[in-house]
C-alpha cells in the first residue's frame, strides 16, 4: 500500500530507527509498502522512516528489482568526495555533502541472513550513506555547516514550512528572567568593589556593603531556583538544546562562582567594619 511521505516540517525523520529483530510478515509488509510507495513516486531509494516506519530498512531500486538492506552497517569507507544531494524530506533543497565513494556494507536480508557487499559506485555509495543516516535519525542538513543549515531553514520558513511551535524551544523562556536579574545583581556587586576609590560617607559604604551581603545569597537562591525551573522547562519543551542539564549547570555554576568572588572581594574591599 502506498504510504504518505514524511516531508519537512514533519520532524519524525529525526527519530532513530530500531534494528529489525524479527524477520516475519510484519517486516515483509513494511517492505511491500516501501516498494509500493517508491513505485508510486518513481523513487530509486527509500528508508522506512520516510514513510514513518521506524525500522532499520532500506530499499534500493536496481533496474526492475528492489534490493533490500535490513539493519545495514557501513564497516569500512574510503574515497571521500563531495556529493551533490537532495532529499525527499526537504523539497527543492540541494546541498554538497562529503561522502565516501567506496564502502563496505554488512546487512541482513528479509529472512535474517547476513550479507556483505563492497560498493565502489559513488552514486550508489552516497545514496546508501544518505539512507543509513536517516535510519540513525539524521538527514542531509546534519551534514552541512550551521550557516548553510540556517539559510535553508529560513528559506523553507519563507515558504511557510516550519516546525510546530509547541514542540520547539521558545526563543525566550521565563528562566531567562532569573539569569537577567542575576546578571544585574552581579554587575552591581562588581561595581561595589570600586567603593574604596571614592570618598563615600561611612553610612553609604555600610549601605553598599549591606547590599553586597543581601545580593550574594540572593544570587545563590536565584541560581538554584533557575536550575529547577529550567529543568521543568526542559521537560515542557521537547526540543531545546539550551535547556539541557549541562548548560543549566554551567549557567548556575558560572554565576555562583562570580557572586562568591565578588562577595569575597566586598568583604576585603568594601567592608567598613
Amino acid at each position, binding site marked *: 500500500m502506498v504510504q504518505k511521505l514524511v516531508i519537512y516540517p514533519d520532524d519524525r525523520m529525526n527519530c532513530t530507527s*530500531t534494528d529489525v529483530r524479527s524477520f516475519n510478515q510484519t517486516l515483509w509488509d513494511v517492505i511491500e509498502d516501501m516498494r509500493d510507495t517508491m513505485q508510486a513516486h518513481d523513487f530509486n531509494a527509500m528508508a522506512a522512516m520516510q514513510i514513518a516506519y521506524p525500522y532499520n530498512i532500506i530499499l534500493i531500486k536496481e533496474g526492475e528489482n528492489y534490493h533490500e538492506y535490513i539493519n545495514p552497517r557501513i564497516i569500512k569507507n574510503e574515497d571521500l568526495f563531495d556529493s551533490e544531494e537532495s532529499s525527499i524530506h526537504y523539497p527543492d533543497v540541494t546541498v554538497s555533502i562529503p561522502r565516501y565513494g567506496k564502502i563496505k556494507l554488512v546487512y541482513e536480508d528479509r529472512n535474517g541472513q547476513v550479507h556483505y557487499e563492497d560498493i565502489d559506485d559513488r552514486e550508489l555509495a552516497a545514496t546508501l550513506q544518505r539512507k543509513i543516516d536517516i535510519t540513525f535519525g539524521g538527514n542531509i542538513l546534519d551534514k552541512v555547516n550551521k550557516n548553510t543549515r540556517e539559510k535553508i531553514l529560513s528559506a523553507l520558513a519563507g515558504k511557510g514550512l516550519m516546525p510546530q511551535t509547541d514542540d520547539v524551544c521558545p526563543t525566550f523562556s521565563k528562566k531567562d528572567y532569573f539569569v537577567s536579574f542575576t546578571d544585574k545583581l552581579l554587575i552591581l556587586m562588581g561595581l561595589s568593589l570600586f567603593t574604596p576609590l571614592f570618598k563615600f560617607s561611612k553610612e553609604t559604604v555600610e549601605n553598599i556593603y549591606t547590599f553586597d551581603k543581601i545580593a550574594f545569597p540572593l544570587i545563590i537562591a536565584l541560581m538554584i531556583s533557575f536550575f529547577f525551573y529550567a529543568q521543568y522547562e526542559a521537560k515542557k519543551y521537547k526540543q531545546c538544546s539550551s535547556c539541557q542539564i549541562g548548560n543549566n549547570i554551567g549557567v548556575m555554576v558560572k554565576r555562583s562562582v562570580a557572586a562568591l568572588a565578588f562577595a569575597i572581594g566586598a568583604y576585603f574591599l568594601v567592608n567598613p567594619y
Partner: protein
Amino acid sequence: MARLIVMGGGVSGHTAATFAKDWLGDEHEVVVVTPNSQWNWIPSNIWVGVGQMTKEEVVFSLAPVYEKAGIDYRQAKAVSIHPNGGENGDKEYITIEYTGQGKEGQTEELTYDYLINATGPKLNFGATPGLDEGHTVSVCTADHAVHANLELKKIFEKAKTEKQKILVGTGHGMCTCQGAAFEYIFNIEHEANKAGVRNNLEIKWISNESFLGDFGIGGLHMKRGGYAASSRLFAESLYSERGIPWIIGAHVSKVEAGKAHYELLDGTTGEEEFDFAMLIPPFAGVGLKAYDKDGSDITDTIFAPNGFMKVDAKYDAGAYENWKASDWPRTYQNPTYANMFACGIAFAPPHLISKPMTSPNGTPINPTPPRTGMPSGIIGKAVAHSVCDLIREGNNAHLHEASMAEMGAACVASAGKGLTDGTAAALTVYPVVPDFEKYPGLGRDLDYTFGEIGLAGHWIKHILHHMFLYKAKLKPGWTLIPE
C-alpha cells in the same frame, strides 16, 4: 555479629563496603579483600594518560580510609570460595593470598556470613596474541595511564620532525569500554594541537562497534524535535571534524611491534601500522575458583564460562529477537547460594546489549555490555542494602533491586582539561538496557535521554572527578553524594 566480606575495592566494591559499614555500624563486621593498596577514580585516568593529571591526583590510599570507617581491610587477592565450608566444618569461607601489609604471599582462610563479589575484571591482554607484549599501552589502571603518557610524549617529540601514526580503540572483538578509548583519542588529538604536532600525526580509531557511537549499549540518543537521533551522527561528526578516520566492526586478532592485524565483520582481514597504540583489552572474570565441602570443583555452578558470577539473570534467553529487559538481574543474588551477591563488572550479564554480530569465520565482533561507572556504583549500593537487611531482618528480608533495564546512566566524554578550552559530550541514557516492551521502538525513554556537546559538559567532568574522590574518601556528607 555477622561478617560481610566484600571481594574487590573498586567503584562497586568500595561503594558496597562503605555503605554496608555505615548502615551496620559496629554491631557487624565488614571486611574488604582487595589486592590494591589504592583506590583509583578510573575515568580520570584518561587525563593521566595525556599528562594532564598525575597519578597521585586520581588515587588515594585505602588503608587510612578503611581504618577511619572501621572496615577490616586485607590487601590480598581472593583465590577461592568455599560456600559449603571445608575440612574444618560447614562454615563458608574464602581463601585469600596477601599482596601487601607485610604478608605478601601468605594465604589465609576468612569465614563469612555474606559475600559480595566485586572483583571487577581481569584485563585479559592474553586474549589477543601480542597485546600483552608491550607493543601497545592501555589506560585501564593509573599505572597503565602513566606509562601511556610517557610513550605518548615520545611520539609527540618525534612528531616535531617526522610523521607518526597513532591507533586507538579496542584490542579484541569482545571488548567493552569503548567510551574510555573514545575519550582518550580526543584527548590525544586535543593535546597534539596544543603541542603543535597535530599536522604530523595520523590518528586512527579502531573498534569492534558495528557503528560509531555504539558504546556497547546499542548507541546513545540525543533528543531533537521530540525524537532521538543516534549517537552515531554526533560521533561521525566529531571524528570527521577532527580528521580522525575510523575502522569499525573490527576484531584485533594479533599485535606485533608497530602493527595490528584485524578481522572485519565481513571476514576479510587487514593490518594497521602504528607508532603508538592504545588498545583496550577484553575483560574476563578474575579467575576465582569455587570448591564444595569435599574439595570438588564447583566453579561452573557459581561462575559463568567467562569467569563472571552468575546472579538472578535469565541466562537462557536465546536469540537476539527473544531478548527482553526482564532478562537482566534485579537483586544480583547468586541463584545457588543466597548469601552470595555480585556487583559491578563481576556479575555475569545475561547477554549483550548491542546487536550481536559475527563474521563469516565465526568470530564474534560486538561490544560486550559495560557495567562500569554509574551503574556499578548503584548496583553496589543496592547489594549492600540487601545484605544489611538480610543481616538485620533475617532471610525473609526484601532484597533491593537495581536492574540495568530500569536504571539510567550518564556519560561524560571530555577532551582537554583546561577550564576554558575543554569540550565534552555529556549524554544520559535511560534505561541502560533498552526495554522494547515498555518503550517500543528504541527501547529508551526520551524524557530522560539527552545529549550536549560543549564546555559545560567539560565542567561536569571536573566536578565529577572531585565529587567522587571526595565521596570515596568518606569525607563529611559523603553519603549524600549520589552514585
